[in-house]
């Protein structure tokens, strides 16, 4: 609700833009390398930009390029993208209760633009017990969305001249961003409940490693994250 007091820095659309800034470089690096990879997977500039605009899921878009090159069937590709992006369902379930009082349209718009990174920034804000507005969330989401599309387009423009963005370490932007986002979240959780946070992380690490050898990595991420939640939720408080 608009009437609820929000904390300074989490109120206006501009505040949301500012909260997104630390992740912008990551989006630029990944989006740019996606643009290059897309062009080298025989997609054209229009197709890759459209993909970033309507699919809007980093890892799934790289996977799509690989599958297109391997001549995978349409249903095969769509099914894979579904699994790779299914983790968003859990993130949306976690985030949506915070927007119950907002309109249906606002809810759909927040959900449509939810990414790993915007969810991470949102979650850290929640962990810090900051009160935020819908406008803040929109600023965060829209900045990320526009950055992603622009980065894809720019990568696509140079895609004909560069064949492997990996040489420049650009693909590592994803890992570096996840590392930074995870450590920020971990630090807040540790300060709230040290033992429980460590138990959750250990559960995820062990189960993910085992699951990676049994199921596809996107399914492994979902199951290990759920196991982490299970341990966190079942552990006694204090």
């Amino acid at each position, binding site marked *: 609700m608009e009437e609820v007091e929000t904390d300074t820095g989490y109120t206006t659309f501009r505040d949301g833009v500012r909260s997104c800034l630390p992740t912008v470089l990551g989006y630029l*690096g990944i989006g740019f390398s996606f643009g290059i990879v897309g062009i080298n997977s025989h997609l054209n500039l229009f197709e890759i930009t459209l993909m970033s605009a309507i*699919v809007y899921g980093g890892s799934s878009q790289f996977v799509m390029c690989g599958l297109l090159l391997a001549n995978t069937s349409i249903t095969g590709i769509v099914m894979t993208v579904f699994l790779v992006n299914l983790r968003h369902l859990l993130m949306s379930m*976690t985030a949506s209760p915070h927007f119950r009082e907002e309109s249906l349209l606002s809810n759909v718009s927040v959900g449509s633009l939810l990414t790993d990174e915007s969810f991470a920034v949102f*979650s850290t804000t929640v*962990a810090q017990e900051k009160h935020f507005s819908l406008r803040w969330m929109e600023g965060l989401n829209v900045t990320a969305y526009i950055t992603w599309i622009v980065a894809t387009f720019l990568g696509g423009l140079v895609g004909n001249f560069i064949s492997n963005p*990996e040489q420049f370490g650009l693909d590592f932007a994803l890992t*570096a961003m996840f590392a930074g986002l995870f450590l920020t979240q971990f630090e807040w*959780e540790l300060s709230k409940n040290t033992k429980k946070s460590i138990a959750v992380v250990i559960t995820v690490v062990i189960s993910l490693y085992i699951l990676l050898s049994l199921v596809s990595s996107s399914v492994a991420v979902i199951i290990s994250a759920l196991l*982490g939640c299970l341990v966190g939720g079942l552990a006694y408080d204090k």
Partner: protein
Amino acid sequence: MISRNVLLILVGSALVTWIPRITPFILGKMVKFPAIVTRFLQYLPLSILCALLLETVFNAKAGTLATPKWDVVVALVPTVITAVWLKDLMKTVVVGIVAMALVRLVM
């Protein structure tokens, strides 16, 4: 401009990505999730960020044991140090990219 097959793939992929993203937001407007669900999901941010980070570190193939991508592991060292020390995501990403470019130059 765009082939029919690519268009079908894009639209299909967009739909299967969009529906899981928005469904909880639509359901959440109509019903309140049980307290138990919220209690467990409280740990989702930590769990899923940990899983997503680790996923990028391993070469995985169902049926075989996952092996670490050594270039990623090496580049992660300065990245994690920067993240813990400076607590600045942008600098973390810059250090990471530079570290990885150097690692690939040598390895």
